[in-house]
């Protein structure tokens, strides 16, 4: 198949950037989206042009590096799929594809389609961990965790921190990401100890990093490649309100 690509080209963080029209020729339906870009890049290199810079690592849908908005949708048209797992059979021969990087003030563009997502790491650094010493592997029946809670924690922990929620959010908010991390730890006994402090410092860190406020558009849920649900945001809100009764948000971190 042959395609017309409109790819965001930006030399560096200070460059203004623009969409560049490129042709992708003889693309196989079985190629992944990133393999298609590899093929286009080979052509560009042969012609002595600068290849498209894009982020990738595992290419098996779990690292969350491929920060591309394809035709207006983070990670492209297929639901619950990262760009590397998106295949060219999802596109029409002869069609046009717009490829842009995540756009949010907290995610500055490094080059072309590569953005700096370390703002998400700084939210985790603020409180997305447990600091209690849990010791070695405990006896399996010592601390009982209901099956449902374990499942919910597991669902929340599926978040790969790719930032698609931020890219999709009309407010540039990282609430789904923060909520997944808060919920994941709050569901389990080891994480409960610091649950009140955690929800306060992580939401504060989210604001400090320049992310916007959640106003319940639910675009994040629709774009999430791992199916993280907005119910986790409701859970974060419950945790936040509960934390008020403990005065956890008044203390500075």
């Amino acid at each position, binding site marked *: 198949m042959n395609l017309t690509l409109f790819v965001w080209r930006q030399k560096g963080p200070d460059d203004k950037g623009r969409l560049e029209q490129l042709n992708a020729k003889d693309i196989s339906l079985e190629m992944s989206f990133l393999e298609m870009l590899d093929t286009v890049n080979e052509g560009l290199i042969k012609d002595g042009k600068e290849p498209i810079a894009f982020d990738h690592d595992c290419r098996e849908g779990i690292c969350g590096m491929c920060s591309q908005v394809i*035709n207006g949708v983070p990670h492209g048209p297929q639901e619950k799929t990262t760009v590397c797992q998106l295949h060219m059979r999802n596109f029409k021969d002869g069609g046009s594809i*717009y490829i842009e990087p995540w756009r949010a003030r*907290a995610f500055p563009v490094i080059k072309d389609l590569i953005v700096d997502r370390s703002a998400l790491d700084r939210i985790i650094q603020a409180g997305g961990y447990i600091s209690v010493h849990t010791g070695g592997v405990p006896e399996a029946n010592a601390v009982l965790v209901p099956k449902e809670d374990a499942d*919910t924690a597991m669902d929340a922990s599926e978040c790969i921190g790719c930032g698609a929620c931020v890219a999709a959010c009309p407010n540039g*908010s990282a609430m789904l990401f923060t909520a997944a991390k808060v919920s994941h730890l709050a569901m389990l006994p080891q994480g409960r100890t610091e649950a009140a402090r955690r929800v306060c410092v992580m939401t504060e860190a989210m604001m400090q990093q320049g*992310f916007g406020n959640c106003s319940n558009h*639910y675009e994040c849920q629709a774009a999430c490649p791992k199916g993280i649900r907005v119910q986790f945001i*409701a859970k974060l809100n419950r945790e936040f309100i509960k934390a008020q009764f403990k005065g956890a*948000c008044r203390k500075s971190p």
Partner: protein
Amino acid sequence: MGFIKNTVGRKVVIAVTGQLMVVFIIFHLPGNYFNPWAMTFPAIGSFIWIVRLALLLSFVLHAFFGIQSELENHKARSGPYAVTKSLSTTFAAKTMIWSGILSGVFIIFHLLNITVSVIDESFQDNYAVAIGYAIGLSAVCLHLYHGIASFFQTMGWNSEKSLPAVTSIGKGMALLLFGGFICIVILNRG
């Protein structure tokens, strides 16, 4: 003061103050149809002033934090995408700031018109005023179309299973309120 500086804290303030105004609107609707019942309100004396003060405070806080959040959200974006495609958001959700501002203007007009009687034109006699009321009501109900359901999400008063139902009920309530109020304007046009 950590609460109102936090993004979730402010969202809770916006949700609670908004919902207080919704509760008032719900009582306001039958109040219009059963005027004698509504007329017993002033007889309650100081109670009405407590309600008025609570509503005024709600209005001010709701508008202040709503506008503040919107300005921050605008800053959090780094420019538009060349192609945008909405997957789940609604027209109502995307236009909250505009329907909110329009609602605020409408409420002030309505108070000056009916409560304080400074503006001496009624929608019963003046076509332009009736159209103004219709536009104002549309803005309020568009705002509530997203707002009522949003309240439950913000308070965390839903569950894994109930979220879609709660959202539908919220949207349904906004439409019912719109129907109820717009009938008053249409039926009373002389």
